[in-house]
């Protein structure tokens, strides 16, 4: 699963959040390229100025070669164990079981594949909407809370990322089982016993939980920057609370929603462990479908083509979201500016 990405991204968000808090993030981000480029520029200039004999030029060249030499071992490691396997898989998708585009034709024509793709995209969309709706009030509270409470709320939202994936999945199985605590909670409110384990709502509840940091953090960063005096101004001009929210706060917080939602949408597509253990084979997602090709059919060529398709779907969705949010954002901006 995408678990490790989540963790690092959230950690980075957290860091950025902390950094901007300390007011040095621009420093932190800006200094590197400038200082390194001037350093090397100075090096060259100094070398040229001091002596123009060949020994210093040679030394300069040797230093540069040594810098590349430091990069060689990690580069070789990643090329051998990450890039080469990926390329080999890609190659297989065109040659196994026979050379040509057979695997891709099969993906394009097999109704099972399109069902799985549609199901995966719908699932990702449901998870995205759920996380956005849940994260919005939470992020808002974070943006208006005192410093100490903000630290608490931030720590809480990062806890799922810090929890081992298997421990978390096991916990959800216990919580969602028939006659389990969540079902009991529903009964308490008079909804009767509900079946969640092995159903789509169950998978959504478990997936949205670990996705929450990715919507909360960008939303919070965005909301923190909203000038709350705008709300006072519109209220003093006689706007009702709901109108203030709909016409001022919501449009202004849209960029945070957009970046958070994009992140969740993309990450959700690749989920494997959560849907495999909490869902059922009947509502399997893309990752599970790829795994079945390997585990049960040992069809590496077809699995490779499916991997390409998964990445393609991700990029298409990413592009679509980007275009959609761009128009939406300029819309909301112009509508605010026009008033």
């Amino acid at each position: 699963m995408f678990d490790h990405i989540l963790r690092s991204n959230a950690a980075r968000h957290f860091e950025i959040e902390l950094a901007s808090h300390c007011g040095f993030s621009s420093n932190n981000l800006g200094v590197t390229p400038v200082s390194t480029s001037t350093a090397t520029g100075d090096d060259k200039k100094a070398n040229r100025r001091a002596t123009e004999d060949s020994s210093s030029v040679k030394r300069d060249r040797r230093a540069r070669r040594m810098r590349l030499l430091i990069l060689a071992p990690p580069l070789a490691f990643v090329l051998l164990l990450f890039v080469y396997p990926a390329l080999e898989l890609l190659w297989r998708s065109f040659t196994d079981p026979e050379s040509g585009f057979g695997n891709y034709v099969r993906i394009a024509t097999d109704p099972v594949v399109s069902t799985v793709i549609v199901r995966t995209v719908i699932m990702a969309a449901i998870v995205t909407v759920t996380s956005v709706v849940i994260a919005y009030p939470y992020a808002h509270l974070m943006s208006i809370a005192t410093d100490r409470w903000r630290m608490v709320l931030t720590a809480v939202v990062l806890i799922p990322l810090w929890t081992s994936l298997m421990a978390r999945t096991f916990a959800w199985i216990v919580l969602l089982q028939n006659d389990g605590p969540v079902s009991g909670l529903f009964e308490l409110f008079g909804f009767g016993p509900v079946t969640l384990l092995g159903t789509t709502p169950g998978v959504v509840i478990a997936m949205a939980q670990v996705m929450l940091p990715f919507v909360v953090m960008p939303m919070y960063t965005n909301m923190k920057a909203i000038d709350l005096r705008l709300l006072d101004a519109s209220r003093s001009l006689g706007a009702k609370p709901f109108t203030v929210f709909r016409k001022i706060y919501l449009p202004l917080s849209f960029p945070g929603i957009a970046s958070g939602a994009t992140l969740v949408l993309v990450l959700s597509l690749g989920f494997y462990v959560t849907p495999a253990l909490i869902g059922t084979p009947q509502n399997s997602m893309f990752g599970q479908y790829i795994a079945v090709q390997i585990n049960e059919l040992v069809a590496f060529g077809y699995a490779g083509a499916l991997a390409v398709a998964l990445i393609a779907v991700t990029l298409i969705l990413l592009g679509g979201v980007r275009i959609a949010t761009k128009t939406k954002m300029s819309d909301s901006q112009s509508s605010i500016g026009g008033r």
Partner: protein
Amino acid sequence: MEKPSFGRSFLIAFSALVAAWLVVPTLIVIPISFTGESSFAFPPQSWSLDYYKNFFSDPRWLNSLFNSLLIALVAMTIATVLGTMAAYGLSIATFRGKPAAHQLFLGPLIMPSIVVAVATYLIFLQWHLVGTLLGFIVIHAILGIPFVVTNVTTALSSFDYNLERAAAILGASRFKTFMQVTLPIIRPGIVAGALFAFVISFDEVVVSLFIQSPMLQTLPVRMYASVAEEVDPTISAASTIVLAVSAPLLLLANTRTKRKTKKSEVSHA
């Protein structure tokens, strides 16, 4: 600060519910692991240490824990050395493909793990690395490298390269300069990256599921099997043990980055 447009008390109540939803699944495995019953009914009616006894007496569970710890330690070491070299090399090198090289080191993080798993399995079958310690170690190191690169790059971004030149002018060799000047300054970033790399390996399940063999399993793989195939309640004890190992390390990694942030803030002030 008051915003009557949202009912403030509703907002707080809602957020408290969300907080419970975020925290409860992490904490619930702890009481369940001490249950005296054979089912996972919650809350437990009686208490016992049975599942821990199971865990520490069953060689399959115990071996998987040792495998996980060993693999995570070695993978962390490789990822930390190579990741630091990569971040440092990228920060001082000037060549056209530099941004691409940086992206390359983050690749294992960006690629969906199921795709990494299938590609790795394909190659490991050819190289006879399936079900070997070496196989687990190298692929976990690959997955840890992005975290080391990210953390060390951040640490290097506030590093003053004039210090290196000063050392060079005073006659220190390139290697000596790095070991005695650069390394001590960027150490918090390296340590944070190393801690992340350890936890990533210790938790990794998707790639491990493909390259495991019945003879060689890591703890998360064992846990996966105990949920998917046989329902072995010992997993509740295993979950608690995993939490006990990884949570303090992640906490440490995060305070490390925080302290580093504070320190560099001071140096910039």
